[in-house]
């Protein structure tokens, strides 16, 4: 965290220096021109100083599920609202359902997951800036990006996650981390990571695929187990000899009974779960993963607690999907907001709200929120809509009380995981949301179908329809 803060300050300083130079050489007109092309709203730049390429009532950082939902819904409420979305990528790739690409399910190609931003921008009419956020100055209310600096009245942060290799592997050099990212990417941030993982699987010889589950909060808690299912179905279809090894730092994982039921029926002993195991090192050249496994000895101490032992073990892999500790995106550090002290660093929220605790003009949605609701696609969509209600009411001079404060929201989250192919079967979890006086919490429920099984063909159809609908909600 400390280091990110320093980096942010450094970037801030660089940004300011560039701006000063531009002013001295009389480039203010040019800055105005940049605004017209970069934010597609020439008028917004008129009358601004040379240090800003635009200023907007609402600036949203992140064109993912949370940010797009806030932008779309604010515009639905007030089509004249002055909104800018800042996004570093020029296309969106979906994390939800992307494991079905790994599993080579029917019709699931890269094209199934990639969406352009042209349709929603055209439909809703907000401004767009493609650029990477370098610094946030909350006192001046300015966001500095690689494409210029913009001012805001209200800032919404939906920057998603980053990876925290440094915390998990303190002895690794930056070069080693970069190497591991290239050959064994986590594939929770869609894009090239998914392409690499898919290629590694396509090219694999007989042998094991190892997937690691980190500790702490991470994006899409059922993702590693869903991925294990999809890798297993891929290996079955391709007749690749070997197992899928799921190594977890904790004792379990999301929807575990439903996954275990599915694995036993569909894959026999092909998927092996190794709990209580902390990944300590990887040698990408020999393809060996080292982990420290804690198990019971069967003996009790004087207080009747089982005596545990920790052993160092290794596993030879053919393909590694190393999912490291997750953390909030560095953008959160740049904003200097108060965050939780865990390894993730969730943004502390201002009560039953998506306003941040630190700054009433800064809101947060998506994976970074400091409520007890799951970091899932549908939750980001729900939070985005709630956040849009709050901001819209505020700009009209009123306020909006989240309905969840008064009564629980039934099935606020619904999350599907594909577990099998031919025929496709899936499992699901729903979360009811409620306010406990200090945070919005989610209570999960993993249902069984009428035949007494968790996995259902109908649920697989629902998964596909859910995905179509969620993407349509944002991009059509």
């Amino acid at each position, binding site marked *: 965290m400390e280091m990110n803060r320093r980096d942010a300050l450094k970037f801030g300083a660089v940004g300011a220096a560039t701006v000063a130079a531009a002013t001295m050489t009389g480039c203010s007109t040019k800055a105005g021109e940049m605004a017209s092309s970069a934010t597609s709203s020439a008028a917004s730049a008129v009358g601004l100083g040379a240090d800003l390429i635009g200023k907007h009532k609402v600036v949203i950082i992140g064109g993912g599920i949370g940010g797009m939902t806030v932008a779309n819904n604010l515009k*639905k409420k007030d089509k004249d609202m002055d909104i800018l979305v800042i996004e570093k990528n020029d296309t969106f790739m979906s994390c939800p359902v992307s494991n079905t690409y790994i599993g080579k399910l029917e019709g699931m190609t890269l094209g199934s997951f990639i969406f352009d931003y042209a349709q929603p921008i055209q439909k809703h009419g907000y401004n767009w800036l493609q650029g990477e956020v370098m610094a946030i100055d909350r006192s001046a209310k300015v966001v500095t990006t690689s494409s210029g600096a913009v001012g805001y009245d209200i800032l919404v942060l939906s920057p998603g996650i980053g990876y925290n290799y440094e915390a998990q592997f303190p002895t690794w050099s930056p070069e080693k981390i970069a190497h591991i990212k290239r050959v064994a990417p986590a594939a929770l941030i869609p894009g090239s990571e998914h392409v690499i993982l898919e290629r590694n699987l396509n090219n694999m010889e007989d042998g094991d695929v190892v997937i690691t589950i980190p500790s702490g909060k991470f994006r899409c808690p059922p993702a590693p187990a869903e991925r294990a299912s999809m890798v297993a179905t891929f290996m079955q279809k391709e007749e690749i000899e070997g197992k899928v090894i799921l190594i977890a730092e904790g004792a379990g994982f999301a929807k575990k009974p439903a996954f275990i039921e599915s694995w036993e029926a569909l894959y026999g002993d092909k998927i092996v779960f190794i709990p209580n195991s902390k990944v300590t090192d990887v040698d990408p050249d020999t393809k060996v993963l080292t982990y420290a496994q804690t198990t019971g000895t069967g003996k009790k101490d004087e207080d009747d607690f089982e005596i545990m032992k920790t052993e160092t073990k290794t596993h030879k892999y053919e393909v590694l999907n190393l999912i490291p500790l997750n953390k909030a995106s560095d953008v959160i550090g740049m904003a200097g907001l108060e965050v939780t002290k865990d390894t993730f660093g969730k943004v502390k929220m201002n009560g039953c709200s998506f306003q941040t605790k630190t700054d009433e003009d800064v809101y947060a949605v998506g994976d970074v929120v400091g409520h007890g609701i799951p970091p899932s696609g*549908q939750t980001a*969509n*729900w939070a985005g*809509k709630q956040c849009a209600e709050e901001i819209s009411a505020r700009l009209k001079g009123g306020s909006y009380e989240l309905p969840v404060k008064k009564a629980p*929201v*039934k*099935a606020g989250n*619904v999350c599907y995981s594909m577990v099998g192919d031919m025929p496709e079967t899936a499992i*699901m979890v*729903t979360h009811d949301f409620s306010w406990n006086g200090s945070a919005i919490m989610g209570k999960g*429920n993993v*249902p069984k179908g009428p035949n007494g099984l968790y996995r259902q*063909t*109908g*649920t697989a*159809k*629902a998964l596909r*329809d*859910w995905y*179509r*609908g*969620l993407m*349509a*909600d944002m991009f*059509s």
Partner: protein
Amino acid sequence: MDRRNFLKVVGATGAFIAVNPSTIQNELFANTGAMFRAYERVQLLDGAGAPIKISQLKKEMNYVFNYPHVSTPAILLNLDESTAKDVKLTSETGEEYVWESGIGKDRTVVAYSAICSHQLAHPTPDDSFLQYVQKDKPTMAFERSGVIVCSSHLSSFDAREGAKRLSGPAIDPLASVVIEVGEDDTLWAVGVLGSDRFHDYFKTFKPELKKFYGGKRKGKKLVKISAKTVPLTEYTKEIIQY
């Protein structure tokens, strides 16, 4: 003769129709002109081609007919309790309109467009995600059953109150199919009230329209004369309900 009956019904027994067109004129046409649209007046017939009689509708059973387009499904329900009266509904874009009531002697019979107002999940000949969940069946979407549930994103709608949204990511009510009962107990569909999603539906489901209706153009054709009305279990192969 049908035409005369229809006029008589409207003129003499306004209470028997779902939405009194004069209400619509006053409340809605003045504002937007968009919340009620009259379509071909068609009679609901069963799978064998015989007229559906309102008195024969089983309680709490999902019946499906395609209306007003040949590919747009609607559900017909005979609820086990009377519907509310004069329900004020608001669309996502802020238009207000009034859903007057169910029809039949106990005001229990209602019809709604079965295309989810959120993201268009609907019954198809292959599967159905949107239907009424009977009171004795569980649902994860709402605190009680006896509501219409879309099991794609788990939204629920109040069948007793003009398909007003109860829970989930949907915002709009389901559009209502305005139905009437003839003097001989027959059922007729005459129009659609509320913000329907037909335009998005035709845009979104091109492959499906091709598969079941021979293409988007053919799927968009308006239903004429009569609409085949069957239980959902006959309409679709698989009901997906949470």
